[in-house]
């Protein structure tokens, strides 16, 4: 095995560890959202979260050990393949974020409400989780070929989902999945208002839902059903955590609309036979208004939509532009080629610095 190749067992072990970690966050977020005045540190949710950090850290040590020289140096650590370096940096951010978070609480007190979602130490922790959870998909990306077996597609999808979920939770203040608000009916709509905040929610959620799909699609042929899962599951999980009082209709509508949009776009691509990049651009342009438009149609029948034609049409147009821009950026931004590709592997192999 070369330092930059990973066995299926290694990929799945890290996936389980990161699932443990992100489940801890999900459970903790659920507990804080549904149990007022949760004061003690000793909760089952914290138990899952902190043991998840420990399990992920130990898994990364297990993965790094055979890939380091007999006497590892800091440079050989940094020279590990991206699939290990990225989750390793994530783990470092998690641990530093954890330590700084406690200091932050001791000095400034515990964050409440919106503060939770913008506290710097919490940002470290969330970013750390995202990078750790991306590990299995990055490890899989080192395997040659652009077709995914069902097992590998499952792994890549779960890894992408686990990476995106902390961001969905953390952006609750600007998420279309974290509330069922469709305007209070004021005309004209005030610029600084809950309605305005909701517009941001649609845009941010559009980006967050699209990016994992685009990244998987950039590396592999996108397996059927994966986009639906990557949109539907976050919607359902966000509902479970934050909007259980509002009924299931919205999360199920998002999931159903995602399935419908995938079907329509795949059929369209089959018949139109567009160049790949044009096809992806159209997906970015059309999928968001298809999904959010369906949600607004269902909402108008179930709860009523307080926004007028200007708001609704403008909102959907803006999500289309956002989706198209996200697609263009995600598909086209690529790392520069390495200047001296041979210099680092030699050091990794021997453990002896060039100097």
């Amino acid at each position, binding site marked *: 095995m070369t330092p930059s190749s990973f066995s299926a067992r290694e990929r799945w072990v890290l996936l389980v560890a990161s699932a443990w970690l992100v489940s801890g966050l999900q459970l903790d977020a659920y507990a804080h959202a549904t149990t007022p*005045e949760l*004061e*003690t*540190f*000793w909760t089952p949710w914290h138990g899952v979260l*902190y043991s998840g*950090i*420990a399990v992920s*850290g*130990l898994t990364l040590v297990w993965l790094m050990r055979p890939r*380091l*020289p*007999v*006497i*590892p*140096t*800091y*440079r050989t*650590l940094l020279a590990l393949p991206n699939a290990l370096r990225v989750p390793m940096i994530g783990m470092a951010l998690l*641990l*530093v974020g*954890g*330590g*700084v978070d*406690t*200091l932050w*609480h*001791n*000095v*400034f*007190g*515990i964050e409440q409400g919106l503060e939770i979602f913008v506290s710097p130490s919490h940002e470290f922790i969330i970013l750390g989780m995202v990078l750790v959870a991306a590990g299995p998909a990055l490890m899989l990306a080192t395997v040659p070929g652009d077709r995914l077996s069902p097992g590998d597609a499952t792994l890549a999808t779960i890894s992408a989902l686990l990476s995106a979920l902390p961001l969905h939770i953390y952006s609750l203040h600007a998420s279309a999945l974290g509330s069922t608000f469709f305007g209070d009916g004021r005309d004209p709509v005030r610029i600084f208002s809950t309605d305005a905040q909701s517009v941001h929610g649609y845009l941010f959620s559009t980006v967050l839902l699209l990016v994992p799909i685009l990244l998987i699609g950039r590396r592999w042929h996108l397996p059927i059903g994966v986009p639906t899962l990557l949109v539907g599951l976050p919607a359902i999980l966000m509902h479970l955590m934050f909007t259980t009082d509002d009924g299931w209709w919205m999360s199920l509508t998002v999931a159903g609309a995602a399935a419908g949009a995938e079907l329509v776009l795949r059929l369209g691509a089959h018949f139109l036979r567009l160049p790949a990049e044009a096809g992806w651009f159209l997906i970015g342009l059309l999928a968001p208004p298809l999904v959010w438009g369906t949600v607004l149609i269902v909402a108008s029948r179930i709860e009523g939509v307080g926004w007028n034609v200007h708001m609704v049409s403008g909102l959907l147009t803006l999500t289309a532009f956002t989706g198209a821009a996200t697609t263009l950026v995600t598909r086209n931004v690529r790392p520069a080629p390495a200047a001296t590709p041979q210099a680092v592997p030699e050091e990794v192999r*021997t*453990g*002896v*610095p060039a100097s």
Partner: protein
Amino acid sequence: MTVLHRLACLVLTAGGLLLAWASPAAAHAGGLVATDARSHVVALSPAVPGLEVTAIEDGARLRLRNHTTVPVGVPTGGGAATPAVVAAGQKLTWIDTRSTPEGRSLGAGATQAWSIVLDVGGTPVTVTGELVGARPPSPVPWWLAAVLLAVAVPLVARRSRRPGDLLAATGLVAMAASITHVAGSTLAVESAPMAGTFLSAAGINLLAWPLILGGAVTVFRGRPAGVLAVCAGAALTAVFVLPDVTSFHRAVLPFAGPAVVERILVVLALGTGIGVAVAGASVLRTLALRAGAEVR
């Protein structure tokens, strides 16, 4: 200046700003924090036979023992734990924002009265208490000591003939300081079971300590690869003693022993932890070079 150097400067600057602007501590759920005052109960008026209210853990928490025959109500306004009703024969231990020194800024020797009116079987009973300000230390010597240690360890390691052994031994010092600090913090807590409190206070150190110990044993057995584990464990020790640097700035510390001992332990864990982690870069490179030379 490399990217790493720039990042280090950024982190140090941000840390400095953070500490310079630090305001008095606010309430922290689930643990004791350093403060600048002590709180105690002065009297119950009227006194009720069988009803006992005391301030524990330097006043961070109140403890009510109800040996009367009627339930005792604690009124709302004291934070998450209130209102509460303590049945006859039961006790309640809680953090009450009306009496806790957390977040209070009193001058040294200054006092501030507080009171809570309990409902004892329909009769109002006033608990009066007092917060007494304590003089905080000058933080400069403590920070200076930590920085000096953090700088000294890499310098000494650079000149050492056996830098691996030196780092392993220094890592063990950081570990010992950290364990003593956690144990002392645990013993200061009266309101929770000791084992659980120790685990809570230890946190990620439960990973750091085995890393240092295992790494040091490996190094002393002649396998320098263990230095990396020592460095990782030392870095974690430094990160997870960070929340307790408030002891450099505050007078009343949640520690079962003299405050000066607690501050020395924090200095040792922080300074040697950072020092070992920083020194690891050059020590590991030196050891790898030596091993490479031996192979050739």
